[in-house]
């Protein structure tokens, strides 16, 4: 008889099953483009090897009376040819399946993950190992097997801390350790620090402005509209540097500008807001592959001064930097832990929690125009590094957003949206190509027109 190991989903991850919907299945995709057609048999072998090293990925999601919980399973992942739309739903209640899938199409490998399992950084660790294992098999003779490097530019010590883990004694212990909510793994450290800056995080004073939101027509079967722009990373970096802003905020300002130019409902004094996730592992060493990020909201109101792209970017950068500090994030983390430990919150039955969380999620969404996520520059272990070109990053979306990832000197922006309209992406691309950047576009067919005749 087998007794399964399990671990409760933390508050931060509970939002994903609660906020999951037909439009937004809360799935994200990380992908890599190889320099040859993918060999599915080798990819399967590589997946099996990587799967062994990531006990968290063995988990299935189950529903308890008070919480969702992750439970260890005997399921094995199978590499599949891509036949579903980008970020197709993964988790379905009462159906016990793994919470991720690995797909391949021509030269591309894609890892799709249900967000309650892991965040972008955690998934990138998995994909990095997967690509490393694949490349070692495919190009065994080409390069000596060297120590793997998992470095991720904006999170330089995450890997270091992961490495320090002692060799696990058993799969069960490994599962429990890896599946422990990241928030709790840093709780001890937080407690030692003492009650620094107790109290609520500062809210910007005054009443919150009405934020401009995009509208559009939904795709016919609620699939995610995915468009992907690739460009040389150095060119974008130079452009951002010239304006004195970091690339993420520069691109965000560009996104705002593209929407402002194409949406007829925008007026001169519209406020635009973006949510930007920050990887908390940068500030609080954690080895957990679970969700461990906080989102920072930045906004800009037009018509009150300099509205040039550079000025907007610098303004956003300033607001972002003020929030992205260890102290501000630590306050938030402690609040999260408190909420999770708050007795009345514990005894609320799960279906009621789901309702509350989806209401909170809805309210949050109302104050956002777009969402941005940047995984930064990725370095893969050799020999994968030499055989992977672009990497890509797409997130199922309830509002237009883009996700950025850089590899091999190529910056890829994955635009996703629940709407068929692409005007903002067109304008975005034109702003870039107008600045002399060579942009290429890849798109998944989504509308009835685009798909006419397909599968008939």
């Amino acid at each position, binding site marked *: *008889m*087998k*007794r*399964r190991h*399990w671990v*409760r989903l933390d508050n931060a991850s509970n939002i994903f099953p609660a906020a999951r919907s*037909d439009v937004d299945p809360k799935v994200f995709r990380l992908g890599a*483009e190889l320099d040859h057609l993918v060999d599915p048999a080798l990819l399967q072998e590589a997946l099996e090897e990587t799967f062994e090293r990531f006990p968290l990925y063995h988990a299935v999601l189950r529903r*308890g*009376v*008070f*919480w969702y*919980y992750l*439970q260890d399973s005997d399921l094995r992942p199978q590499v599949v040819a*891509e*036949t*579903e*739309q*980008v970020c197709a739903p993964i988790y379905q209640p*009462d*159906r016990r399946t793994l919470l991720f899938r690995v797909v391949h*199409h*021509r*030269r*591309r490998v894609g890892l799709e993950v249900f967000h309650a399992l892991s965040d972008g950084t955690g998934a990138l660790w998995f994909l990095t190992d997967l690509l490393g294992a694949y490349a070692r098999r495919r190009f065994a003779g080409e390069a000596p097997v060297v120590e793997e490097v998992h470095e991720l530019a904006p999170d330089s010590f995450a890997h270091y801390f992961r490495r320090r883990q002692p060799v696990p004694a058993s799969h069960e212990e490994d599962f429990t350790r890896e599946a422990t909510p990241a928030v709790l793994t840093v709780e001890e450290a937080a407690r030692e620090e003492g009650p620094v800056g107790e109290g609520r995080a500062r809210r910007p004073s005054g009443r919150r402005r009405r934020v401009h939101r995009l509208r559009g027509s939904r795709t*016919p*079967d*609620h*699939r995610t509209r*995915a*468009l*992907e722009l690739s460009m040389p990373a150095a060119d974008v970096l130079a452009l951002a540097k010239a304006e004195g802003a970091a690339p993420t905020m520069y691109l965000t300002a560009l996104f705002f500008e593209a929407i402002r130019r194409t949406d007829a409902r925008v007026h001169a004094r519209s406020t635009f807001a973006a949510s930007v996730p920050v990887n908390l592992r940068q500030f609080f060493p954690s080895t957990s592959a679970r969700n461990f990020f906080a989102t920072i909201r930045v906004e800009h109101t037009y018509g009150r001064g300099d509205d040039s792209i550079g000025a907007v970017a610098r303004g956003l950068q300033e607001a972002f930097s003020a929030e992205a500090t260890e102290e501000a994030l630590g306050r938030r983390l402690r609040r999260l832990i408190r909420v999770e430990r708050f007795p009345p919150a*514990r*005894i609320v039955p799960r279906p009621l929690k789901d309702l509350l969380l989806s209401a909170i999620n809805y309210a949050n969404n109302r104050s956002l125009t777009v969402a941005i996520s940047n995984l930064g520059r990725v370095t893969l272990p050799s020999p994968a590094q030499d055989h992977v070109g672009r990497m890509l990053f797409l997130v199922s979306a309830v509002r237009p957003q883009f996700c950025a990832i850089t590899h091999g000197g190529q910056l890829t922006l994955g635009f996703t949206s629940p709407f068929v309209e*692409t005007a903002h*992406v*067109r304008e975005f*691309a*034109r702003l870039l*190509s*107008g600045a002399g950047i*060579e*942009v*290429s*576009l*890849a*798109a*998944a*067919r989504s509308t*009835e027109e*685009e*798909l006419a005749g*397909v*599968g*008939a």
Partner: protein
Amino acid sequence: MRACADCSLRVEGDWKRCPLCGGDLRGAVVPSPYPAVPLRYSRRRVLRVLVLCSLGVILLSFLAQLLFRRDAEDLGALRSVWLGIATTWLVVLMAVSKRRNLAKFIVYLVAAAAAVSVYWDYLTQWSGWSVTYVVPIVCAASIAGLLITVRVIRMELADYVVYSGLTVLLGLAPIVFLALGWVGTPIPSAICGALSIAVVTLLLALRGGAVRHELATRLHL
């Protein structure tokens, strides 16, 4: 690779027109990095609407039966037929929506069948046939059914232990009926109660640890 002059873009794939501006593309076609996934109309929404409408109709028809109480005698046969149809439909809906978890379905089935039969008995001028015969027989049969199901489809213990526990607890209800003197003939209730007690004892003796573990998991605060 193809290119769109209007957007100054290179476009990957076999697009005839630019996906962004709809303009003409020039250049050689390259294979698309994304497969074209045909539109698939989701049956899920249709199913959901059907289930909700059906549940509404069943509920309304049960309520309507209450209004005919005074004319019960005239409506006898008609009422039985109609309640039978509504109950069948209810069972079908439950079977469809709980098809992925048979143990859960059995609990739902027992609860619904018992409740409907008691209600039916009440509508047709209470004579106690439901608590005397139907409820004990349904409970006992479901316990037997569950034991067979678990054997046949090799369910994992964790997947059925809580629901089989619930089924067995439901099976203890007829003993309560017996104690309260609601039943005419005690044999069905006695058999059902004995079966439940036997299974509950076996379950706790053989699988006590697993039961506690599973309950701790599900009820974890």
